[in-house]
């Protein structure tokens, strides 16, 4: 076990208020850093308000959702999912498990799929949040149209989540294979069993034609 007293890290300057700035501000340039323990500095920093704890009661939280600024007031323990659904009026994202296992709550954070149920609203500030409501301001997207046409849903409870992940896929990979689509969907569960049609819809939206027709044999039956 090696001790590294330099408190190193990748050599990138931090933006903003540094320990050194603080020391200079305290007029301690004449005092060696070793004499002032890091703990004391940190405690002083905390006291000076540079890092102010928020909560546990309700605090102002500003979220950028679907391109709009939403000013909310909520406790730090409120999840992003709850904030969206009960305070921002955006009920598209659903709570089905609350434990980051089913994908029904999926939103995009800076374009990347994330589970809103396991994100704190207060921690999602400074992120661009996209919900399903933000996708179709100008009518259904090609993915949404394909989901409708190919019946990529049944009860629909899981559907907004799938739409979010597949929307992110369409933006990072315009020509996905079925394996890519399955991977993009791998954080989602559908109890009604719509996966095959979801895959087909994602591929169709990407311009891949497949044999999606339903096979119906009329009686007397014959297999073509």
């Amino acid at each position, binding site marked *: 076990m090696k001790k590294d007293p330099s408190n190193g890290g990748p050599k990138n300057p931090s933006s903003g208020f540094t320990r050194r700035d603080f020391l200079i501000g305290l007029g301690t340039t004449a005092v060696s850093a070793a004499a002032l323990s890091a703990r004391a500095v940190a405690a002083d920093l905390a006291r000076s308000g540079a890092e102010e704890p928020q909560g546990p009661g309700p605090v102002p939280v500003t979220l950028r959702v679907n391109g709009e600024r939403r000013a909310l007031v909520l406790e730090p323990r409120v999840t992003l999912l709850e904030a969206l659904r009960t305070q921002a009026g955006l009920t598209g994202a659903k709570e089905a*498990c609350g434990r980051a296992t089913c994908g029904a709550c999926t939103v995009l954070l800076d374009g990347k799929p994330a589970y809103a149920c396991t994100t704190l609203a207060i921690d999602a500030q400074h992120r661009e949040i996209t919900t399903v409501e933000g996708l179709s301001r100008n009518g259904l997207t090609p993915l949404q149209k394909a989901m409708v046409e190919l019946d990529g849903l*049944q*009860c*629909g409870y899981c559907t907004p989540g799938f739409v979010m992940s597949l929307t992110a896929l369409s933006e990072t990979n315009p020509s996905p294979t079925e394996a890519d689509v399955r991977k993009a969907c791998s954080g989602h569960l559908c*109890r009604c*069993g719509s996966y095959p049609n979801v895959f087909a819809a994602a591929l169709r939206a990407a311009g891949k034609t497949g044999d999606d027709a339903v*096979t119906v044999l009329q009686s007397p039956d014959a297999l073509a």
Partner: protein
Amino acid sequence: MPWPKERKYLGKPMPRVDAPDKVTGAAKYTTDVLPAGMLFAGIFRSSWPAAKINSIDLAAARAAPGIRAAVVAREGPRRARYYGEELAAVAGVSRQAVEDALRLIKVDATPLPFVVDEMDAIQAGAPQVIEDGPNFTRPAARETGNVSEGFSRSASVASGAYSAAVELHHCLEPHGNMIAWEGDQVNAWASTQGVFSVRDGLAESFGIPQNKVRVICDHMGGGFGSKLGFGVEGALCARLAKAAGAPVQLMLTRFEESLCVGNRPSTFQKIRLGADKDGRLLAFDMDALGSPGFAAGVSTAAGGGGADIPSPFIYKVPSARVRQANVAVNAGSARAMRAPGHPQASFGMESIMDDLAAKLGIDPVEFRLRNDPMEIRQREYGIGAEKFGWKEKYRKPGSSPGPVKTGIGCAGATWGGGGGRGQAEVQVNPDGTVEVRCGTQDLGTGSRTVARLVAAEMLQVEPSGVAVRIGDSLLPPNGSSGGSTTTANIGPAVFNACENAVAELARLSGIAEPRGGRWLEACRKIGVNPLTASGRWQPGLSSQGVGGVQFAEVDVDTETGFVKLRRILCVQDCGLIVNPLTCRSQVYGGIIMGIGYALYEQRVMDRTSGVVLNPNFETYKLPGPADMPDIDVILLDMPERGIIGIGEPVTIPTASAIANAVANALGVRVSDLPITPDRVLAALGLVSGLRPSWAERPIPA
């Protein structure tokens, strides 16, 4: 009154009416009903698997910040009979307030001995689950023909012990309600399969007139049989709303969904099956039990309680003896789950069929054709075997080379379905547009679209000109959505309403045939007020009884036990196919649920603490996208039989076909579902120190 021979809309694939709302997040489910001033609610549950509950102290909870009401589930001392049983509930201004308050509830309880394992529960001296009765009584066997004689004449007899675990519905939208009292009227939004059953349950539990209760279910996130009643959570929600004088939403969490809103009972079957040298079945003998939870088959709050199974299921056996029993354990009660009893019966029967076929050296499909009396299934096996490539692929069990072994299997199924009741109303507007109204539910089954298509066909208008309203107890009742009956109920009712509407329109307009080219002209003559016509379910448009066969192909890695499902092929009939697109989706759904039953799903109880160990999706494993095989569905359209249901038959044979495929691959059978890697490796003899099989413990007389 047959369906039209030439059909313009019925039988054509049609995207569902509600799909745009669902893909945009606009569809509102009960969880999304959040009126201003609404309170949130939560349930306090027993943390003992069995206990005398002496008293519940709500004082601190009531006084907690933001709390507006707190009630006990039942007054007075009572028992808790399973971990998670409802004891009390609170309502407050936020979920956080409710969560904090629940933790302030104090209970004085005397823990009691408990038992959660079926094989433990049937032993003499086991802790008593039912207060005034045994955990387990064995009724006499029921016998047809002469079983001993049948076995003595058999050229070959197979025997086996097959089991399947308790399976949970795990609808993605939890159970729950949003209930608001307005004067003497109560409005309830419910995630339900039966708006009228909720209405009447609410009315009865509060002693209020049924015509003062309205239940709305615009969209709901899955039921699978678990949402057919009002529920304890519904009653608590309504009581809190009344006590608080405010709307209350009470939705269960996934944890709670794992405990108390129903399940498919476990099954443990010891079976013997005998056949003559030509492979004709002669005798069947089954000794079985299963657990439907603490009430052991006494009718539950939501119906469909017991663990009995319809063995020997679809096969014709001249002599059959069946002895089966329900076992009580300290666990949540069963509820009907997609084809209740049938996947369990199918699994045992189809497994031993394959085992006997192997002993006789007869091809499994051929063996079934010799013993399956249903003509439709005979045809379906023919179509399916050819499409699947059965003859080319089939190899004797265990003969696939290499460490990753391939195997194939098949199974058949039957189900009733069919309709028999229900009403609908059709409104024709002066501008020619149409509205269909039906007090039915759409669980994801596509019933809205069924109503639209039938009306479009019968009125000969474009489907886009037909609006559909469902899911409201103010609408004409059409029955709860269970038993795969909804389409067969709606279809004829809407058919009849349309007939009546056309007749009325002809009368009003003086145009003898108002449909088609003269539709708009006729409608304009309606006048200011639209025309409405009622209809009722009529015989002749639907019927009962479907077949269905499925084939499965698997690869099994014999070094790791991992089962990779490669392909499922299904040939299914359901009479007249109203909408092939949504019909096929139902087939996918049933198959995928069967995949879960075969390979992943089991509710795990802990014998020491009595809790459910996997109350989440992390360790209660549902099939995910990556688990999907290629699924081929061939639907047989038989309009001459009218509409028959599809939702349930398609989940019955799936696990059986998969289990048979695994047995075919390995040459040994994993006879306990789910077929997880540990069980595969154990069956291959690669694991020592195993817990003794349940089958080694005798079933007490």
